């Protein structure tokens, strides 16, 4: 058993952990505060509770009811996206919104109001949550839905686990013909080219995302777009490799190795550009093939920066700043969000472009760069994504989340997190 850490392995935190085994159980009595912890796939500190207690939900992994006619699934909050898809895809149903990894829990998907590659059509995960039960520290079990306890519902979606423990949730699925995606890969060589491709693709495809490679000589990338396939396929199920077996030393992710990886990845993408039918898992969850890939960054871990801004100039400014810094950006992802309103008081998605960049944790050097990027976002009136954040200032958080005061009224007094204490520091 590993001591609990977030996916970025930064910041370090020491906390107790208690497993919740049954949804009918009361909350444990502990000294200090509680925070639900699902699969630990948040990058920064929103899934940590330094000095407090984590409520591990991985054993709340039971299905409750599946209405196969209407595609309505009720399950416990610790069930993973992967478990749901394994159950429902063979029966012709898919989750309307999936994140970049299927190894997250339903509770985590709600608490961060996650988004996918189809935000401009489907909105966030929370839009497809029909109801859930929230266990509060008073012992109350609040049934929440868009019509019942509607405020608590809106506070809990994207509520970062601070409003109580979600014990179960009911989700609306969408029909699919099978496990396949008709996908197309298009290489591009500049930010302008990306925006042209994106404007066209979002009209014609349900899912879109771009991988970008920041180089001194300018941006290049691969644009991925796709739809659920209506055709029967015969693409075999990929072999499942094991998890990455050990921590690499800190210098493993450095300028030359990243440049080499990116050059290979780009070349492979160009070679395989064009249309083809693929299985849904490699299309949606490309990194799940290697479990625990965060070990590539060593014990110091990584920091991800994900923002949303409306101003394309700000995107360009961030790419320039990150590209010219001494810190290597090991992974870049660019998408656009649409107009579909997000249901949570603290939901991150809003209209604009969303840029995500991974950086190895090089200490101060990385932090200085993150501060510079954060300043660009604040200037542009954008927001940072708490699920990915370990560094943003209280001022940036408050500026990016105007409904913060509404939300705060619904926080359960027995619940807190490292993230919450950091961004609410006076």
């Amino acid at each position: 058993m590993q001591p609990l850490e977030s996916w970025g392995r930064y910041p370090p935190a020491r906390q107790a952990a208690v497993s919740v085994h049954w949804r009918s159980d009361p909350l444990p009595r502990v000294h200090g505060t509680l925070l639900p912890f699902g699969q630990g796939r948040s990058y920064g500190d929103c899934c940590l509770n330094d000095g407090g207690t984590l409520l591990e939900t991985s054993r709340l992994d039971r299905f409750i009811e599946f209405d196969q006619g209407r595609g309505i699934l009720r399950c416990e909050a610790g069930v993973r996206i992967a478990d749901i898809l394994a159950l429902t895809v063979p029966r012709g149903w898919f989750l309307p919104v999936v994140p970049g990894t299927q190894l997250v829990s339903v509770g985590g998907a709600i608490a961060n109001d996650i988004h996918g590659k189809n935000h401009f059509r489907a909105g966030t995960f929370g839009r497809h949550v029909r109801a859930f039960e929230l266990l509060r520290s008073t012992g109350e079990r609040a049934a929440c839905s868009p019509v019942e306890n509607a405020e608590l519902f809106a506070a809990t979606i994207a509520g970062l686990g601070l409003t109580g423990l979600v014990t179960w949730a009911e989700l609306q699925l969408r029909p699919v013909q099978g496990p396949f995606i008709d996908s197309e890969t298009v290489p591009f060589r500049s930010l302008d080219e990306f925006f042209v491709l994106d404007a066209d693709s979002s009209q014609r495809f349900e899912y879109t995302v771009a991988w970008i490679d920041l180089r001194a000589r300018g941006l290049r990338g691969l644009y991925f777009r796709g739809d659920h396939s209506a055709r029967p396929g015969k693409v075999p199920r990929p072999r499942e490799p094991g998890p990455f077996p050990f921590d690499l030393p800190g210098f493993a992710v450095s300028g030359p190795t990243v440049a080499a990886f990116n050059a290979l990845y780009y070349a492979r993408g160009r070679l395989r550009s064009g249309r083809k039918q693929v299985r849904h898992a490699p299309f949606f969850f490309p990194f799940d093939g290697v479990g625990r890939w965060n070990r590539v960054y060593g014990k110091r871990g990584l920091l991800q920066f994900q923002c949303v801004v409306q101003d394309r100039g700000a995107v360009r400014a961030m790419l320039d700043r990150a590209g010219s810094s001494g810190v290597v950006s090991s992974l870049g992802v660019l998408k656009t969000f649409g107009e579909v309103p997000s249901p949570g008081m603290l939901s991150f998605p809003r209209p604009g472009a969303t840029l995500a960049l991974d950086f190895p944790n090089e200490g101060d050097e990385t932090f200085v760069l993150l501060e510079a990027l954060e300043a660009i976002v604040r200037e542009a009136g954008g927001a940072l994504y708490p699920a990915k954040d370990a560094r943003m200032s209280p001022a940036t958080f408050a500026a990016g989340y105007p409904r913060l005061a509404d939300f705060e009224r619904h926080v359960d007094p027995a619940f807190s997190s490292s993230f919450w204490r950091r961004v609410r520091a006076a």
Partner: protein
Amino acid sequence: MTRVLVLGATSAIAQQVARLYAARGAALFLVARNEERLAAVADDLRVRGASVDTAIADLDDPARHEDLLARAAPLEVVFLAHGVLGDARETERIAEAAEAVLRTNLLGPVSLLTRAAQRLEAQRGGCIVALSSVAGDRGRASNAVYGASKAGLAAFLSGLRNRLYRAGVRVVTVKPGLVDTPMTAHLAKNPLYSSPGRVARDVVRAVDRGRDVVYTPWWWRLVLFAVRLLPERVFKRLSL
């Protein structure tokens, strides 16, 4: 369609075993004490593809055993998964506490399996699979009573296997090592712990392949082989 009677169906290992059978569309008969928890497990298994019947019973009460087996009949796979760890400190000092552990882990199972064995013998087929423990391989100061109960169960299963062999009834003894379950929730975890899912895969494979005694994970067989080799005059000085 496989029929599986699960005794102690809300135990962490039993839930995982039942899921593997549910994925095969098995017919499950689940027995446990806590109504709310049993319902949660039964619902989960139905969604996963099983047809499920349930009975609420305290398996420490032998008066219920005959009725339960009659309701679950005809038997095919009988999986006995219930048990308690007991508080070692308490069982050292209070004889009644030690007795309670033996009742749950040994007397109840012997009563249940004696009755199940008669039915299977009459049917001339089927399989009994029960959870013993590596703790039964050698008595240790830290869990003498628990170890004794699991050693007793292992010996009983061995005898049962011997007796039922000619009737075509198989008996599988499963000896898990340290497993991360509610039973061990209060103990600090280390890399020797396995997940209930891992143990469950080994249980189902052992039934499928008709094994006699399985350690899970397999390397516990080597560990216990070494532990059994230690002479008692050395062993008694150790604090394992």
